C-alpha cells in the first residue's frame, strides 16, 4: 500500500510536467492548427538558461531560494522570446502559404539546431541544478515526498490557471479564444490574428521553459533532457485531446502514473509501454482524444 501510494505520487509529479508541456502544444494548436515539435528543446533551453541565471545569482551570495525566484522571470521572458522566434522562422511562412507539412519539418529542424547550440554552450554532460527547497523528503501519512515535488504540482496548476484566467477575463485573452474559434471572423473584429498566433507560440514556449526549471531541480539538466519529455508530452496531448486544457492534465497524469506502476510492478524496461498502447487505442477509437470535442457546428 505504501509503495503504491508512493508510486502514484511520483507519477502525478511527472504527469504534471507532461501536462504543462502538452498544455503548450494545445495553445498553438488552438490558434493555428500547428505545433512546435521543438517543444522539448524549448524546455531544455529554459532549464539551461535558468541554470546559468541561478548560478550567477547564487554567486552574488543570494540564497538558492531567492535566486530561484529571481531567475523565474528571466526564464519566462526567455521562453516567450524563444517561442516567438520559432513562430517567426519556422511557422509563419508555412501558414501563409497554407503548407501542410512545412511547419512540421521547420519546427523539428529548429529543435535540432537549438539542441546543437545548447551542446556547444553548456557541453554534453548532465549538470546539477541547485534546488531552491530543502531536499530532505517530508513524510505525509504513508508517503515520502520532496518539497520540490509539491512545488512542481502547485507551479504547474498555477500556470494553467493563470492562462485560463487571462483567456476568460481580459479582452486580449478573449481575442485569443476568438482566433481559435474562427480566424477570419476574429480578423473582422480588428484582431491581428497573425500576432495572436505569434503570441500563442511565445506562451507555449514559456510554458515549456517553466516546466524545464520546475523539473530541473529533481532531475539533471542538459542538452538532451528535452527530447524524451517533448515526445511523451506529445503523446499526452493526443491522449487527452488537443482541444482540451483539462484533457492534457488528465492525459499527463495517466501517462505519469502508468509509467511508474509498470516500472515497479513489471519491469522498468517496459515502463513506456502502457502509455504508448493507450495512445494507439485512443487514436483508433477516439481520435479527437479522451476529452477532445469536435467543434460545435453552426446551425
Amino acid at each position, binding site marked *: 500500500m505504501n509503495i503504491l501510494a508512493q508510486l502514484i505520487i511520483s507519477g502525478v509529479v511527472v504527469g504534471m510536467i507532461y501536462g504543462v508541456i502538452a498544455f503548450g502544444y494545445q495553445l498553438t494548436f488552438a490558434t493555428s492548427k500547428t505545433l512546435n515539435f521543438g517543444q522539448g528543446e524549448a524546455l531544455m533551453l529554459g532549464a539551461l538558461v535558468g541554470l546559468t541565471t541561478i548560478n550567477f545569482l547564487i554567486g552574488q551570495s543570494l540564497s538558492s531560494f531567492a535566486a530561484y525566484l529571481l531567475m523565474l522571470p528571466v526564464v519566462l521572458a526567455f521562453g516567450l522570446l524563444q517561442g516567438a522566434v520559432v513562430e517567426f522562422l519556422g511557422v509563419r511562412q508555412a501558414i501563409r502559404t497554407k503548407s501542410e507539412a512545412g511547419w512540421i519539418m521547420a519546427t523539428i529542424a529548429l529543435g535540432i539546431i537549438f539542441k546543437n547550440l545548447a551542446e556547444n554552450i553548456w557541453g554534453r554532460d548532465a549538470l546539477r541544478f541547485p534546488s531552491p527547497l530543502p531536499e530532505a523528503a517530508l513524510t505525509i501519512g504513508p508517503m515520502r515526498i520532496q518539497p520540490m515535488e509539491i512545488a512542481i504540482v502547485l507551479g504547474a496548476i498555477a500556470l494553467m490557471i493563470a492562462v485560463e484566467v487571462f483567456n476568460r477575463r481580459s479582452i486580449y485573452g478573449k481575442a485569443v479564444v476568438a482566433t481559435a474559434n474562427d480566424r477570419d471572423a476574429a480578423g473582422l473584429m480588428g484582431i491581428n490574428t497573425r500576432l495572436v498566433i505569434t503570441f500563442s507560440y511565445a506562451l507555449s514556449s514559456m510554458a515549456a521553459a517553466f516546466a524545464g526549471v520546475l523539473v530541473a531541480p529533481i532531475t539533471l539538466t542538459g542538452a538532451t533532457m528535452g527530447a524524451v519529455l517533448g515526445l511523451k508530452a506529445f503523446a499526452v496531448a493526443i491522449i487527452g485531446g488537443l482541444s482540451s486544457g483539462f484533457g492534457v492534465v488528465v492525459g499527463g497524469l495517466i501517462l505519469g502514473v502508468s509509467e511508474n506502476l509498470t516500472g515497479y510492478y513489471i519491469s522498468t524496461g517496459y515502463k513506456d509501454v502502457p502509455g504508448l498502447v493507450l495512445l494507439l487505442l485512443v487514436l483508433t477509437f477516439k481520435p479527437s482524444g479522451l476529452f477532445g470535442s469536435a467543434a460545435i457546428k453552426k*446551425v
Partner: protein
Amino acid sequence: MLTIENLVAGYGKVQVLHGISLEVPQGRLVTLIGSNGAGKTTTLRALSGMIEPQSGSIRLDGKDIAGLPAYEITRRGMAHSPEGRRVFPTLPVTDNLLLGAFTRFTGMRPRGDTSADLDRMFELFPRLRERRTQLAGTLSGGEQQMLAMARALMLNPEVLLLDEPSMGLAPKLVEEVFATVARLKERKITMLLVEQFAAAALEVADYGYVMENGRISIHGPAAQLRNDPAVRDAYLGVAH
C-alpha cells in the same frame, strides 16, 4: 462615405467580380441585390479585407483601403456581419459582443461608452439579453443572426456591411430582421445590405444596385428599381 471603383476580385485564379463600381453615401442604406452566385458576398468580402482585391479602389472616408488586411480595415471603421453569421461558438453572447468592440477596448478606435452600447444592443435585441451568458454556439439561427449584427454594431462603425441577414430564417424572423435594419436606418447608420429578398430590401433601402455575373447591371433609387419592369421580372417575382 464608401466609394468603390472598378473593383476586381475572386478566389485564386477564378475571377468573380469584373469591375464593380458603387457608392454608399453617409447615413444612407444601400442595398445590393441579385441572384445566387452573382458576386454579392464576394463584393462584401473584398470590401472588408477577407479576400484581397486584384485591382480597383475602395475608399472609406476618402482613404484607399483596398488590399489592407481585414483587421486594419476594421480599425478604420468598417464593420462586417458576414455570411453564415460566424459568431464565436465557444464564447458567451456577452463576450461575442465585447469582441465586436475589441478595437475600442484596445485604443485603436475611440472608446466611447462601451457598457452603454452593450445595453443599447440588449434593447435592440432583447433575446440576446436573455441569452447573454449562454455560449453563442448553442443559440438558434435567428439568435445567432441578431448576435452577428449586434457584434458588428459594437464597433460603432462608419459603415456597416450586412451579408444576407435573412438567410435561413423563418418568415417571422425575416420580418424582424428587416424591422431592425429599418431602425438602424433611422439612427443614420451608413449601411450596405446584401439580400436575396430583393423586394423587402428595396422596400427599406434608399438606393439599390442589381448584380449579375460579377457586374452591376442596373442601379438607381430604391423606389425607382421597385417599379423597373426588368427588375420586377427577374427579382421581385409576381407579387407586386
